């Protein structure tokens, strides 16, 4: 792909924290210029730029942030872009699965188009990486995933993606093992699953099967575990064991992981284990009855990604699709109100990348970093998170993929 070479001039970069009486009271930032080459940030300069004939695009003082990562969404089944529908009452997860038998075939004709609308929306908010789950079940077979992949194709060059083959109706329960195998052959990057305990009714066999498929396909794993309490803990402990046995460190994710919200000692222990094995978790940052101990898990070294999960579908009507809003909600939920903790909470939506590290040293962008960035109307990361800063432009591999920049 032919990538442009140019200077992105007048970019605001954070340079350090500002202190008063020992408290961090703000962030210093200065205008810089960044040379974009081969989709990367090739060099960072400040002051007068010598005339070198390269084209220039003017960021006009906007703050540069690492692009966001939407780490848990279902772009294959949504009402988004179609007529409004509220959620119908259903009898738990099995009621929902029952509902899907009728609903999914009806959604299929518009699936690709709606998935594209969703990607457009995510991109506009600043996410240039999307991990989507796609239903793999006896009702739709692989057709949902195929529609999602066509949509992702449309957006190739604008965002990167991962596709989880997700047997929503139960890997074992709905006898979807061969379908998931087929999905992996067709390009899914992760093997998915849902509640091995309550949906499949056999933690060990369910997880073992997931790992077998993953190893066979040399693929990652991303398992929905809503099960709380002992069932959830047992499931996640077994995930850890299997990860270790398979040497799958750094390739496994547990989504939702609600059992962490139970017994604190058990949660802390499991968090340590997840950190050790590079098992990440993704969260929608629930704030109702259940609150995840995300700060504790983060402190233990667990990699945490955030996702919108549902935008508007038969499960929930509330998703907005804005990862920065998610980070803000996380900050609000956990009372991250001071400069440093606000700024650091950006890391939850950027794969851990923040312009300043916890000590206030500039660590991003570094020479050679991918030019996947968001330009926002803010003076610093903390402000961007707390005030849900307006996104003016989004670059992926140095190319403008949403918003606008001035050409000079």
């Amino acid at each position: 792909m032919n990538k442009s070479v140019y200077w992105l001039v007048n970019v605001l970069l954070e340079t350090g924290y500002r202190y008063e009486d020992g408290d961090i009271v703000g962030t210093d930032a200065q205008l810089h210029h960044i040379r974009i080459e081969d989709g990367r940030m090739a060099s960072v300069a400040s002051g007068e730029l010598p005339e070198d004939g390269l084209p220039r695009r003017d960021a006009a003082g906007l703050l540069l942030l690492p692009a966001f990562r939407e780490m848990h969404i279902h772009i294959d089944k949504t009402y988004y872009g179609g007529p409004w529908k509220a959620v119908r009452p259903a009898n738990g997860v099995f009621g929902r699965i029952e509902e899907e038998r009728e609903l999914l075939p009806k959604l299929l004709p518009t699936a690709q188009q709606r998935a594209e609308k969703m990607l457009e929306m995510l991109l506009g908010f600043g996410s240039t990486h999307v991990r989507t789950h796609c239903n793999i079940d006896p009702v739709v077979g692989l057709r949902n995933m195929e529609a999602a992949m066509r949509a992702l194709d449309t957006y190739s060059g604008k965002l990167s993606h991962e596709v989880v083959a997700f047997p929503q109706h139960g890997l074992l329960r709905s006898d979807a093992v061969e379908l998931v195998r087929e999905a992996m052959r067709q390009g899914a990057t992760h093997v998915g699953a849902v509640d091995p305990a309550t949906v499949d009714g056999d933690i060990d066999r369910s997880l073992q099967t997931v790992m077998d498929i993953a190893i066979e396909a040399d693929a990652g794993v991303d398992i929905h575990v809503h099960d709380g309490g002992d069932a959830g803990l047992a499931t996640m402990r077994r995930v850890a064991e299997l990860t270790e046995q398979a040497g799958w460190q750094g390739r496994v994710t547990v989504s939702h992981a609600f059992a962490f919200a139970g017994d604190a000692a058990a949660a802390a222990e499991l968090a340590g284990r997840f950190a050790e094995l590079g098992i990440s978790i993704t969260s929608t940052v629930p704030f109702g009855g259940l609150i995840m101990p995300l700060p504790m898990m983060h402190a233990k070294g667990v990699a945490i990604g955030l996702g919108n999960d549902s935008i508007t579908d038969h499960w929930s009507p509330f998703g907005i699709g804005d990862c920065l809003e998610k980070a803000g909600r996380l900050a609000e939920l956990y009372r991250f109100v001071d400069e440093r903790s606000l700024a650091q909470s950006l890391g939850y939506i950027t794969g851990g990348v923040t312009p300043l590290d916890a000590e206030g040293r500039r660590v991003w962008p570094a020479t050679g970093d991918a030019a996947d960035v968001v330009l926002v109307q803010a003076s610093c990361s903390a402000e961007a998170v707390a005030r849900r800063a307006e996104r003016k432009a989004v670059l992926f591999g140095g190319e403008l993929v949403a918003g606008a920049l001035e050409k000079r």
Partner: protein
Amino acid sequence: MHNAYWLLNVRLETGHEVESGAVTGTKTGLFRLRIKDGKITAIANMSDAGDIDGLPQLDARGLLALPPFIEKHCHLDKTLLGDRWRPVRPAASLFERFEIEARTLPTLRTTMKERAEKLLELLLRAGSTHIRTHVDLYPEAGLRHLEAVQEALASFEGKLTSEIVAFPQHGLLRTQSKGIVREALRGGCGLVGGVDPHTVDGDMEKSLQTMMELAVEANADVDLHLHDGGRIGLDTIRRLAQLADEAGWQGRVSVSHAFALADMQGEEAEETAQLLANSGIAIITSVPLGRAIPPVPFLHDRGVHVAVGCDNIFDSWSPFGNGDVLERAGRLAERFGRKTEQELAEALGFITGGVTPLDKDGQPVWPKLGDEASFVFAEASCSAETVARRAKRPAVMHRGTIVAGALERTSL
């Protein structure tokens, strides 16, 4: 604006869609409304032929009309909007927070009036045309906050209505603010405020008595900030209800935050809800995250009036908040898992003073002839969608006049 005109292509809700016994959607139709002197004087179907009397026309182009929103709890004097970004400074105690705030506000480069106006602009754009604001009253600040807020409100005259709570932030008794509250009540405040009679004032009984005494003396309503939880908080609510009943102040008292209501169990929950309903005590919540909040659906079902406000919007207490009370209603619905058509539509009532276009049975009850022509125009097919999807609001109308956004004017 025109004294009389037609508002065309207004989408109004007309009934429920029902499928196998469950409400699954909302029916709407397009209407034209005749507006005169800020009131609705005729409502007709768009399809009905009729004389338009040669009056000017405004075209809503199919936008959904909703009752205007009420921002029931904010602090116009506290916001930092319009000034530079600053995070919240760590404070070891509530009292240190008071000091930080009192020290910070006078040093800002912007004036309190300017900042309050910024916030009012946000509130209005979000669809709130009635605002209840608290204003801080403490000895060092005198009536300055009240004056600045009144000036800001004056520049929004005709665009929104307001009520001001005389709020002794640092404690009515603790800072001996009775006199200044009394002055503020004479100076335009319609409500007496207060904060945590037990924890801040250290004397629940005397604090509540003084509040009610001031209220009765000034014929003012009451809105108490109550963060105190558990037994103390519940006792405070019960005592306030008693005092309200004794004074004949039913329907004139609100408790903001009321976190203690989250701590009610079993029979006590039923009793307390009954008490609140009987005394007409309203509960106001900003739906804060990360803490237990009053069981809103439970209270609503038992006839307790519940309202939502944004509370802190970028101030010395919180760096968050955007003044969008519809977003808060959506958060409330999400918080309590209210996601069916009816549950979502009902949530709209928490930001409209209880007014919803349809009643529980799906009968259209709003708008009616003679109602004020005050609307939020939303890009949505129904109230439920508006709440769940945080619908865009291209225009807001107050008493017949567009006060935020725009509608298309159709020439004759």
